[in-house]
């Protein structure tokens, strides 16, 4: 039975900070909509990271000051943003050439489910009737060199999101390299899931009880 205790583990900002620490200096990075966007707020001192937004900007800056928003300067999630000095704009075919052609180093995405083989499901629950929408997620996982997932470890109902096999429609097969959850950082390897770091007060046993696939210790 799921036994997630919401009081322990990292909060959203701490999860984003953990992911930001693993982004090397000089990386070109694409951030998915939602929690991944927080990652850009935690670039460690002394590192330069260039953010790509797939609607056509390399060199995405922070949110503009109130009153300085430009409706023609937005990110993929349609939020107003800024462009850093040295930024450039381009059309969608060039933008996805950067993505699909493996020019982007790291992509941080949200997840509905991740399998022990690194399969990702993050665009549809497969529920009949809902209007499906996919955006650029399938291109990102197909082309970006390294895929980080940032997600709560379990669903709102306490069910594991990291499982043996995804039950939702896939975004990509065998694409996830590392998972940052509120309970742990987990590497997806050819030999299975390996726990890289546990959040404070989280034990390996507790983590395993909240995970739907076998975890390994390094």
């Amino acid at each position, binding site marked *: 039975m799921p036994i997630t205790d919401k009081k322990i583990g990292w909060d959203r900002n701490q999860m984003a900070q953990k992911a930001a620490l693993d982004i090397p200096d000089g990386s070109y990075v694409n951030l998915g909509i939602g929690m991944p966007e927080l990652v850009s707020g935690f670039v460690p001192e002394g590192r330069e990271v260039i953010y790509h*937004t*797939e*609607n*056509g*900007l390399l060199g995405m800056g922070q949110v503009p000051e109130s009153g300085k928003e*430009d*409706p*023609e*300067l*937005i*990110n993929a999630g349609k939020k107003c943003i800024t*462009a850093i000095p040295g930024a450039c*704009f*381009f*059309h*969608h*075919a060039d*933008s*996805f050439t950067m*993505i*699909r052609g493996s020019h982007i180093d790291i992509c941080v995405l949200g997840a509905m489910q991740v399998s022990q083989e690194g399969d990702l499901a993050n665009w549809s629950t497969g529920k009949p*009737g809902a*209007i*499906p*929408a*996919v*955006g*650029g*997620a*399938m*291109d990102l996982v*197909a*082309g970006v060199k390294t895929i980080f997932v940032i997600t709560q470890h379990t669903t709102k109902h306490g069910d594991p999101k990291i499982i043996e096999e995804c039950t939702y*429609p*896939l*975004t*990509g*097969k065998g694409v996830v390299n590392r998972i940052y959850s509120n309970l742990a950082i987990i590497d997806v390897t050819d030999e299975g899931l390996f726990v890289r770091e546990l959040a404070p007060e989280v034990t390996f046993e507790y983590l395993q009880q909240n995970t739907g696939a076998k975890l390994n210790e390094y």
Partner: protein
Amino acid sequence: MICSFPRTANSTVFPDLYYKKEIELELVPQGSLAERIRAGGAGIPAFYTPSSVNTPLAEGKDTRDFDGKTYVMEYAIKADFSLVKCNLADRYGNLTYNKTARNFGPIMCTAAKTTIVQTKKIVEPGEIDPEIVVTPGIFVTKVVEVTNPEAESKLVAEDRRYPCQ
């Protein structure tokens, strides 16, 4: 409708038609959509891409292995009309865009029989530096000057409908 993300805040026309089964949706990964448009404008009928392999969006599509990796075939898209927004245009149809509003504009200009462009300003030939022309005029059929266009999302949020009351 061929689209990668057919959901937007306050949108009603597409959901209404979709639930009444009066419109067909072809859902395409955003990058495959962009490349299908680019191919359509470039005279390339189809291509292979790694995007969507092993997902429901690749079902029923031709696949082929290159260097041990599987790719899915996607067909080019060509339109009868494309409606595009730009920033500056001259009478040859040379265009520049404004920031991320460039979007799918330049590729969609190439992939339609008739390309109609809304521009904030029509300028004299030569006023746009040839080095910064984004869309060469050969891809553009007509330009229409609209100095202060309203954002569509704002009009939709205000529940404004066409034809205007």
